[in-house]
């Protein structure tokens, strides 16, 4: 992690010595008071966030060791790791882990690839580029619940949805999208929603490419593919990582699409939906909490990797600034 005194001077136009002097007082007691004064503006946000996010999780951890069904509150008792055993042996829950992984991976990978292709298309100059860009952003700006309802009723509906309507025009088959391919149906709607986001991030990446380097490569006789493979793609790497990371954070936690499109039926229940079901409808507080804790452990594993990615991006940002 970079040191404040080395990071700060490069940012201002002042000479390094002057910038450090104002930041560090030589006297030790003053220094401590000063450090608290420096930290003070940070504290409200930090304390607020710890109270509102970490305390509930600690409570979840405690509840997860109890056998607690809201319908039988008098039978609440400490059972140690029993809930975890139940959760680990629960077929439905194991399936929902698989569903979560599958859903997240599919949606993120497909939308990143599609987003990259679209960004490359939009990086070129053509008539109406701004308008096309605006059209592409629309799916991302729709309220997620509205977009899920739109897909479920106006597009997928087997009797009067747009998809089957178009198939009627073309003389094609009339599938019942959601019952025939439930997970794919959820994935398609999410890919539609997230591709624009990936496209926007990657487009910003493309437009920050150093053009002189590309010019030079072209003069040296490099073809389009070579330029893409050896200049554009390496430059885009951090943008690809960022898109993947942010997409994963949001899609792992997706609730709206699963809740609206399938209500978790037909093997589409992901972890957030399963936990919601376990505590909100089945009232199995202990079980739901154990499942929640397991999700967090899984997330920590992924997040450690993800944070490393962001951290490398961030260091680059700091050293560039």
């Amino acid at each position, binding site marked *: 992690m970079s040191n*404040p005194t080395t990071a700060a001077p490069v940012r201002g*136009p*002042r000479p390094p010595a002057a*910038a450090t002097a104002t*930041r560090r007082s030589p006297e030790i007691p003053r220094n401590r008071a000063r450090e608290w004064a*420096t930290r003070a503006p*940070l504290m*409200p*946000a*930090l304390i*607020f*966030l710890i109270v*509102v*996010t*970490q305390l*509930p*999780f600690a*409570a979840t951890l405690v509840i997860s060791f109890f056998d607690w069904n809201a319908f039988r509150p008098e039978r609440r008792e400490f059972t140690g790791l029993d809930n975890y055993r139940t959760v680990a042996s629960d077929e439905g829950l194991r399936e929902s882990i698989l569903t979560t992984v599958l859903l997240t991976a599919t949606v993120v990978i497909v939308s990143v690839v599609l987003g990259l292709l679209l960004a490359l298309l*939009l990086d*070129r*100059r*053509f008539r*109406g580029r701004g*308008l*096309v860009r605006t*059209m*592409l952003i629309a799916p991302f*700006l*729709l*309220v997620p*619940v*509205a977009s899920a*309802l*739109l897909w479920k*009723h*106006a597009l997928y*509906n087997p009797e*009067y949805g747009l998809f089957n309507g*178009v198939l*009627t025009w073309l003389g094609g088959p009339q599938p019942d999208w959601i019952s025939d391919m439930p997970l794919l149906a959820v994935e398609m709607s999410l890919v539609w929603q997230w*591709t*624009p986001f990936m496209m926007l991030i990657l487009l910003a990446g493309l437009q*920050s490419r150093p053009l002189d380097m*590309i010019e030079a490569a*072209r003069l040296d006789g490099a073809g389009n593919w070579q330029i893409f493979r050896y200049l554009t793609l390496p430059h885009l790497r*951090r943008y690809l990582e960022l898109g993947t990371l942010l997409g994963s954070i949001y899609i792992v936690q997706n609730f709206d699409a699963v809740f*609206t499109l399938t209500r978790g039926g037909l093997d589409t229940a992901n972890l*957030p939906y399963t*936990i*919601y079901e376990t505590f909100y409808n089945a009232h199995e*507080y202990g079980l739901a909490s154990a499942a*929640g*804790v397991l999700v*967090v452990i899984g*997330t920590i594993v*992924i997040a450690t990797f993800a944070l490393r990615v*962001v*951290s490398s991006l*961030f260091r680059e940002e700091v050293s560039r*600034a």
Partner: protein
Amino acid sequence: MTASTAPAATTAVPPSARRARRRGAALGLLAWFTGIVFVLPVLWMVLTSFHSEPDAATNPPSVAAPLTLDGYREFFGAGGGASPWPPLLNSLGASVFSTLFVLVLALPAAYALSIRRVRKWTDVMFFFLSTKMLPVVAGLLPVFLFAKDTGFLDNIWLLVILYTSMNLPIAVWMMQSFLADIPVSVIEAAQMDGARLPTVLVRVIAPIAGPGIAATSLICFIFSWNEMLFAQVLTGVVAQTAPAFLTGFVTSQGLFLAQVCAASVVISLPVLAAGFAAQDKLVQGLSLGAVK
């Protein structure tokens, strides 16, 4: 939108210029085609919302059916259904107040992290981000139980607090990157003149980082407006927000396609308008300020 590589290529190699131009036109068409494919569902939703119920639910679709405002009229309660105004106002209230709270908490924090550079500031930044990776469901039950016991269930302020915590990490990251762009010398000059923190924030930082702060607020507003899980679990009749109302609306009324589309249009309108207006800032914000 800066430069593109195409013109340089066409002028540099005259013989293949025509072929390159033809290829460029084809790719332009392809871009137009994909753009239309992506926007089509949204346009379809808008069109359907202006159709009568029988015209909305036909196969093949009746594109040229007469337009009517019935869907919207029904949605706004002319048909005797529940009025969408309370949920819309709840959403507005929850989003506006949580955005304000986020700003009040995040701005000083970002100031400490970017300009004063507290010790271990990168660790603090990562702590903020890590809370965003904590799955919401893992803390929902205790919040629910706490709210039930203290009578805060179905209360808009509970949502405000939760939305604030949901958006605070993003806001701190974004604002940190915006504030880091302000030259230290400007701030130091103000401090030399005897300005204290509130004055510096209002007089020096706010004007320079204004667009960034506006983008941050916009994103917080959109996320709060869109939120569904908390609203579904923690609100009932009184504090119900628009997204929760929208799902309840479909179940309780049975399916009226034109009405559902009208409802979706109404609820998405604020976000669509705000998002189109601030496209560039939106990307920058959503990528936590890492993309500039």
